[in-house]
């Protein structure tokens, strides 16, 4: 990263998978998923535990391959460019596709400021750092709460604030896509509401893919919902993708209907 990051939101953000399968050793955890995520919208991945939704998400920024014995087949297209193509730099890919995790995980030894600019901010001088951090923290709706304690430890913040700091950290890299793995799973209802509101705003700038085990949340925050289900071999399959309003009211697959009406999972 160079000194001054671009100020306008990047135009990209077209993300799609093509016949994507993910493996842990010989176990096929995600099988033949082809899905095109809608640009600058929130896509929710829903499904029962163990259906491969988190694994699918982790394939989208090449994080899956860091797990021992894990591998991927098929393609993931970011702006028509296969991120798994031989010679692609996974570090560069991951800077274009940010990620927020299930549990808030700010870097405990860095200050709030340094957390916000953790991606490439090390070489900036203090003023530039604060500038970048302010932009990111405002985008994550956290600036007003932390602007007077930027040098403090992030561990002093509440869980919800920590999670928004993690969002700021991802946003500061000016990615095109934001992946969120159950971003509110460890938060209380009020903090959850703040994050959900934030997701809607962030979708104006980023293509968001969010895993959630909470169907109400999917219904509240997403434009598109994808339903996944593990088959008899434990392989996660994509069952149905549709506009959220349609999927929750008139699902076309009976398994989707069973799931959203609470008949299993």
């Amino acid at each position, binding site marked *: 990263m160079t000194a001054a990051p671009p100020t306008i939101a990047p135009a990209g953000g077209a993300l799609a998978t093509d016949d994507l399968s993910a493996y842990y050793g010989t176990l096929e955890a995600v099988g033949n998923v082809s899905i095109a995520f809608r640009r600058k919208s929130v896509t929710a991945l829903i499904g029962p535990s163990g259906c491969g939704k988190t694994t699918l998400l982790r394939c989208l*920024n090449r*994080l899956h391959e*860091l797990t*021992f014995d894990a591998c991927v087949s098929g393609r993931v297209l970011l702006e028509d460019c296969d991120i798994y193509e031989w010679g692609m730099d996974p*570090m*560069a*890919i*991951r*800077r274009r596709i*940010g*990620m927020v*995790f299930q*549990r808030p*995980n700010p*870097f*405990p*030894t*860095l200050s709030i400021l340094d957390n916000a600019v*953790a*991606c490439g901010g090390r070489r900036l001088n203090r003023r530039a750092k604060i500038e970048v951090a302010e932009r990111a923290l405002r985008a994550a709706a956290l600036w007003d709460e932390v602007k007077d304690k930027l040098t403090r430890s992030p561990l002093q913040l509440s869980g919800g604030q920590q999670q928004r700091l*993690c969002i700021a*950290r*991802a946003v500061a*890299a000016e990615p095109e896509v934001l992946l969120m793995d159950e971003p509110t799973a460890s938060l209380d209802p009020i903090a959850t509401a703040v994050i959900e509101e934030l997701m809607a705003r962030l979708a104006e700038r980023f293509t968001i893919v969010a895993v959630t085990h909470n169907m109400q949340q999917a219904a509240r925050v997403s434009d598109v919902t994808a339903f996944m289900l593990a088959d008899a071999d434990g392989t996660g399959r994509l069952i149905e993708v549709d506009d959220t309003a349609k999927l929750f009211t008139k699902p076309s697959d009976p398994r989707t209907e069973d799931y959203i009406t609470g008949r299993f999972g």
Partner: protein
Amino acid sequence: MSPIDRGFAAVVYGGSVLFALLIVGLFVELVLGSWPSLKAFGPSFIWHSAWDPVANKFGALPMIYGTVVTSLIAIVLAAFVGIMAAVFLADFAPRWIATPLSFLIELLAAVPSVVYGLWGLFVLAPLVRTAIGPALQHVLGWTPLFSGPIYGVGLLTGGIILALMIVPTVTAISREVIAAIPRDLREASMALGSTHWETATRVVLPAARIGIFGACVLGLGRALGETIAVTMVIGNRPEISASLFAPSYTLASVIANEFTEATTSLYISALIELGLILFLVSIVVNALARLMIWRVRGSRA
């Protein structure tokens, strides 16, 4: 509580009290044994550098110096190698390498120290005399640390042997501490587009620093008290000289070496007082290390 439970509680309670009594007893015995020397020299025992049993003059400074310098050499070398190895084992090595390699490293700790001593005397000391020493002197000979004649046995050789002996401790505990750093944190760093190296040095090591420091201090504790291997390669001369190539003495090795020939009661009690100093220093260093490691493990549990 039933009578059986009460009896059982008494037994386990007694067992644990025994350990505390053992430490206190040891301390009392050391103080009693060194009483003549304590009375004769007072606190000046610690900073007098003459060690002349014939003239009945005893000062601990050369041994304290030798102990501190060899331990410092050991901990510097062992910390560098051990931390690197721990990062490799915990974060980089695939499991089929990491598991046997950790096992092997922990086996190193089981090698009897007299074997290290033999190896040090017959392999390392000649190597220091003919290769390592001259090479260091060629580059750094202008500093007092690496000047003077190279005997082969001396502070540097003692330090290297100690480093070899404590590197398993440093590696094993650092690896454990690094492995306890949540996976989330590494992934957060990787997901921001950091390299493995950046993740290890800027996220994992800083987060593990207290535990790693504890591992090093624990290694230091071992180095301070290690006796036989050092005795075999240190040169056994109670002198203070700036050069790391010069022969020296440590607290532990002087006790091991001279106890059988100590004839006067003052001589014996001076040796016991050396033991008392070593005991106190070791206890403090080890307690510090344990506290630090506990703090890290506790906060992750």
